[in-house]
């Protein structure tokens, strides 16, 4: 399943880049992610709660690996989660384009879902993946706005 699209953040590219490497921010970009900790060199581990349609939400283990990093332009993100009901494997190519004070993100993710969750949730998976992506990006945007506001308050007048 391919999930792709674009999203514009109201922040300069370097700021967006920095925030996207921060596990405390990243965790907010993944709806259901309960915590995420950095294990070094672009690798993160955590727990995510996933439920799709008739599949009851359950906690899955989550690993994220950022690679091919070209700051502040692009990176590849590998997201794996697994639980008793199956697994997901996602590989996303993320590009950040500088647009006069704001940043346009272009993403294209190839998402694989396996096991029970694939067997019963299929009709809904497409919608759920798109919805989770949208929710994630919006959450990320809110977080950025908050951070920027904090930075501005903290900045000397």
């Amino acid at each position: 399943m391919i999930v792709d699209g674009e999203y514009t953040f109201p922040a300069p590219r370097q700021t967006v880049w920095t925030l996207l490497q921060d596990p405390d921010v990243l965790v907010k970009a993944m709806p259901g992610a309960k915590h995420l900790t950095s294990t070094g060199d672009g690798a993160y581990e955590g727990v995510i709660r996933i439920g799709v349609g008739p599949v009851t939400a359950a906690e899955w283990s989550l690993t994220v690996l950022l690679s091919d990093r070209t700051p502040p332009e692009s990176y590849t993100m590998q997201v794996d989660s697994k639980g008793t009901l199956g697994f997901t494997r996602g590989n996303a190519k993320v590009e950040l384009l500088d647009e006069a004070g704001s940043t346009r993100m272009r993403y294209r993710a190839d998402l694989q879902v396996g096991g029970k969750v694939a067997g019963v949730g299929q009709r809904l998976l497409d919608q759920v993946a798109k919805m989770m992506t949208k929710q994630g990006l919006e959450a990320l945007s809110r977080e950025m706005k908050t951070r920027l506001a904090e930075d501005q308050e903290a900045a000397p007048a």
Partner: protein
Amino acid sequence: MSRRYVGEWVTRNEDQRLLTGHALFVDDVRLEGMLHVAFVRSDHAHAVLRGVDASAARARPGVVAVYTAEDLGDYWQPGPLLVPPPPIDGIVFNLATQVPLAKDRLRHVGEPIAMVVAESRYLAEDALADVVVDAEPLEPVTDLERALEPDAPVIHPQLGTNLAAHVVQRHGDYEEAKSRADLVLSRRFHYDRGASAAIENRAVAARWDGQAQELTIWDTTQAPIPIRNGLAGMLGLMQSQVRVVAPFVGGGFGPKIMMFYPEEVLVPWAAMRLGRPVKWTEDRQENFFATTQERGQVHDAEIALSRDGRILGVRDSFLHDTGAYDPYGLTVPINSQCTLLGPYDVPAYDAEFRAVFTNRTTVTPVRGAGRQHGVFVMERLLDFAARELGMDAAEIRRVNYLVQDDFPHDHKILFQDFQPLVYDSGNYRPALEKALELIRWEGFPEEKRRAREEGRRLGVGVVSYVEGTGIGPYEGARVTIEPSGRVRVATGLGTQGQGHYTAFAQIVAEALDVDVARVGVVTGDTREFNWGTGTFASRGAVVAGSACHAAAQAVRAKVLGVAARVLNVPEGEVELWDGHARVRAEPQRSLPYGELAMRANPLRGGVSPGTEPGLEATAYFGPDRGSTASGVHAVVVEVDAETAMAKFLRYVVVHDCGKLINPVLVEGQVQGGVAHGIGNAFFEKLHYDESGQLQNASFMDYLLPTALDVPEVSMAHRETPAPMNPLGLKGVGEAGCIPTGAAFAQAVEDALSDLSIEIREIPLSPNRLFELLREAPAPSSQGTAP
């Protein structure tokens, strides 16, 4: 004059127990101290299994044991090859059978990795989450053509290839036939996977009795005796120490003849090891992933005909998806290859297939067992040829039928039972004419025109098929008249709703002239009968029924002998009448069977040397080869060209299963088969994605036809007795579903005749039909648009 039971409409002996809730199913087995099982299964279609950590699961309260492949020790063995490949020249067959628990590779989603045994199913299911599976995904093999490319990942590294088999069978000279042809048509056909969807899933329960040193296994199998023999061997027990009971089973349809399923091997082993009864009942989702499936073939077929529509030759080359393992050998693709020939005179046949391993659930026979694939290809080729030649669909079949003088007809290729594909008997044309009459073929163009004026699209289809049934090797039966005068019949095969308790009772009741309700049948309990093979290939009535007949005849001879002795008349003067033996000339001198049974088993006094006690006999029947059933299906459908929904308006089956034992049972089989066939044609399809993940593993997404979708089938029976068995029987279990897809395709095309679509795939669905309609060229003339 004795009473007739064979061929009569007799209500089912088993229904009272079934309808009042007194029939035992495996999940009803509840024993003190019973443990329950859940399986950790693969989420991956193809992966290296690096390790399984069950320590947390073992520590969970309520969990009694967790087993992985390593824990099985020497008990871990790949399953047996059930059906060896037939002795065809040049055959290639590569064997890879299923294993009890995955050891180093995962080969399909749902393959068992670990077995959790706990005090309840709830606890066992909870503990699944504690088992950590370390798997490294490999590129899955899902496309049949891609699987055979040299750089494709190999599912069974020891074989070095994904080719499971390559078989070529030929008769006549196809090239020569083609060179003489007026019309040559070639097409590619797809037939995709479906589930058997029995109402009862698989289940196994086992109890080890240490004092009796006896293992009892309740199993939903269609083959209780081979299960007993196999498990006794694996567990190091004598066959006599193992009792397998296949009680009432809620539908077999083929996957329950598969053995040995991993769960079937593990549950009895765990019961012995733990010294407590153990039970596992498959849930519906497991059934979708772990019970064997069928279909998945791609055919490239060509037909050569003369101008008058006569078949000169057929060439067919197909790929068959055997799934992750091939324990059932080549039964399904050989059935496809042989059944393609249908009721037709095909002077030249050039047939080839390759069976291919894929990372999907293993394929074994499901009702029809590959026959429907062959029928679909042949019937579609005839339809396309008829269109090209401007012939009527019925006429092109009529001119190609084998006729009476052709029987027995040898197609000079081998069938699934390793015997030459010889049709023992048949009479096809009258069946076609009857079907045309019942579907109202002649008046149909007018009916179609009138419906079109109302904006409705109707279409008609008529197709033929043959079905090789009733194959060997053998079945047996024991018939006993008890001192109560009641008769008991025991046979080794299992019963899954076919009505064996009635059909076998009728055969015995007629031979002994006793009320059919006084004949009790027991099937599927290895303690009751020691020998047999199983219920498959539409063979129960033919093979076990013939054994019942033979055993009943032997008991009849004993009754006559004992009666003659007791009544002191020559045997020739004794006749049997309504549960009594009497002197023909003096009917008042009469003895009930019960008394004769006691006389045949005296407590004191002498019996003649060499006499067997009691009124009991055991007999076996093994036909040289199967008997060929045949039939014609005709259907009228209504298709909505906008929504692509199709409705079955009328469905006709004219069927020839030789002599009927009981029309109500035959009609039930045919009606049920048609429901299955309609599901396969238009509703049911297992959707796998390109990574081998099954996407519709529940009845929310896997559509079964309902009572609203399946019309009441209008039936006519023709009886061309089989020469291969004493009662002239042929099988009927699969007849309803074999040609359904082909009939449906023809009718849908007819309903959409102005849109010139060609249906070359099954299953269709409203979605798929919608796509075909969108791809179709615009109607030729504007006046015919809806």
